[in-house]
Each structure stands twice: as structure tokens, then as C-alpha cells.
């Protein structure tokens, strides 16, 4: 399941909804990305996430499908927020549920690595010094590329 939304999410509720009534799950991994107050040039007052409606949903669905093809997941969820956020706010939630923990961990890392390099979002930070578009990080391209080699071992 994927959702692109302006409003916040509750990790506990999302996990409960995703796994309710299931007894075939042994491991649930969640990743939550939050706005960190760590701009190079001073404190961030806010961060605005712009996205490409339509393509965003398409990319998230494609990435989720790829994760489900690579790992035996019982359930998965991606929620990505857009709009104006302030430090401490949630940005993204990824949930992966599997029978075994290694598959759940790896699939969650894979989803995050691909979101960083493929999901059409752009971040503008506002601080006392003005506004600044956040650069995509080269380390994120590297993190994404590690999944293109031979498949890592998964239970």
C-alpha cells in the first residue's frame, strides 16, 4: 500500500491496520524519516516538500512492487508527506512485514534507498539566512546502487 498525503501519520496505528488479524507475520520493521534541524548554515525554521503528483504515486507503487518481488513480504506500506514541515515532524514511513526478520530489515532499507533516489520529491529549507533547495546526496545514489548487484542473502 502507498499513500501520499499532507497530514501526519501514527506509526502504531499504521502497523496495527496493516497487520490486524494476521498470524503469519513474525517480524515488522518500520522506518520513519523526520525533519532534522541540521542545515549547514544555521537552524532550519521549516522545510517544504514539493512533489510531482501522479508520478509520485507511480514511483512509490513501482518501488513497493519491486521490494515485494525481491523479498517474501506479508505486507508493506509506504506513506510520504508533502507540504510545509518543521523540525521533528515526520516525513516518510516505510513498514515491511515478513515471516523472518532479515527479509523485513533488508526490504525496508531497500525501500528507503530507492525512495531517496527515485521518488520525485524536492525539499526547500527555510532558515534565518533565507531559503535553500536541499541537494540530492551522492551517497544516496551509492546506497541505491548496492541493490543492483547480486541479491543479498535473505531468509
Amino acid at each position: 500500500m502507498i499513500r501520499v498525503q499532507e497530514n501526519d501519520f501514527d506509526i502504531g496505528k499504521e502497523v496495527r491496520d496493516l497487520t490486524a488479524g494476521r498470524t503469519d507475520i513474525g517480524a515488522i520493521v518500520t522506518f520513519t524519516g523526520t525533519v532534522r534541524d541540521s542545515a549547514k548554515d544555521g537552524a532550519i525554521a521549516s522545510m517544504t516538500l514539493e512533489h510531482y503528483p501522479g508520478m509520485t504515486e507511480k514511483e512509490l507503487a513501482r518501488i513497493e512492487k519491486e521490494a515485494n518481488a525481491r523479498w517474501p513480504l506479508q505486507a508493506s506500506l509506504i506513506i510520504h508527506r508533502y507540504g510545509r514541515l518543521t523540525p521533528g515532524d515526520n516525513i516518510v514511513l516505510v513498514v515491511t512485514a515478513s515471516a523472518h526478520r532479515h527479509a523485513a530489515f533488508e526490504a525496508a532499507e531497500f525501500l528507503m534507498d530507492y525512495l531517496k533516489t527515485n521518488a520525485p520529491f524536492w525539499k526547500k529549507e527555510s532558515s534565518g539566512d533565507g531559503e535553500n533547495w536541499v541537494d540530492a546526496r551522492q551517497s544516496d545514489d551509492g546506497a541505491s546502487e548496492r541493490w543492483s548487484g547480486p541479491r543479498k542473502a535473505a531468509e
Partner: protein
Amino acid sequence: MKLLYFAWVREKAGIDREDVDLPDDIETIADVMAWLKTRGPEFESAFEASNVIRAAIDQTHVKHTTAIAGATEIAFFPPVTGG
């Protein structure tokens, strides 16, 4: 052809979307960007560092060398930073 611009490409171009008639000799994404640059100082500035600009055809990531034949929507934007 529907063109979309995001983030600082949008800010520099001063427009977020438009419908344009592309010249017949335009074949690839790179050709579109080269043509856009000729449309005035805003577009020249937006596409000056065209090597870092990414593109999508009909909401799918493509390369600069990708042919635009059959496209209905082309988007230009900086490298994405999801997550």
C-alpha cells in the same frame, strides 16, 4: 506537448506547466532542453546547468538521450530527494 517544471527549475523558469508546440526536428530530451534555453533569459537560466537536470516522460524517469516520440507529458526537475 505538456511540459512541467519542478523545484528550482520551476522557480528559475518562472512557470510550473505549459502546453507547447515543439519544432519538428526535436527528437530527444536533450533536444527539448536545448530548445527551451532559446526561449528567453528565464529559461536560459533554468536550463544553464542542463547536465544536472533530470527528466521524466509520462511520469517515468528517462535519460537525456531518450527519444520523446509518443510522449504526452515531459517533466524537468533537479535530482530528486525523496524519503
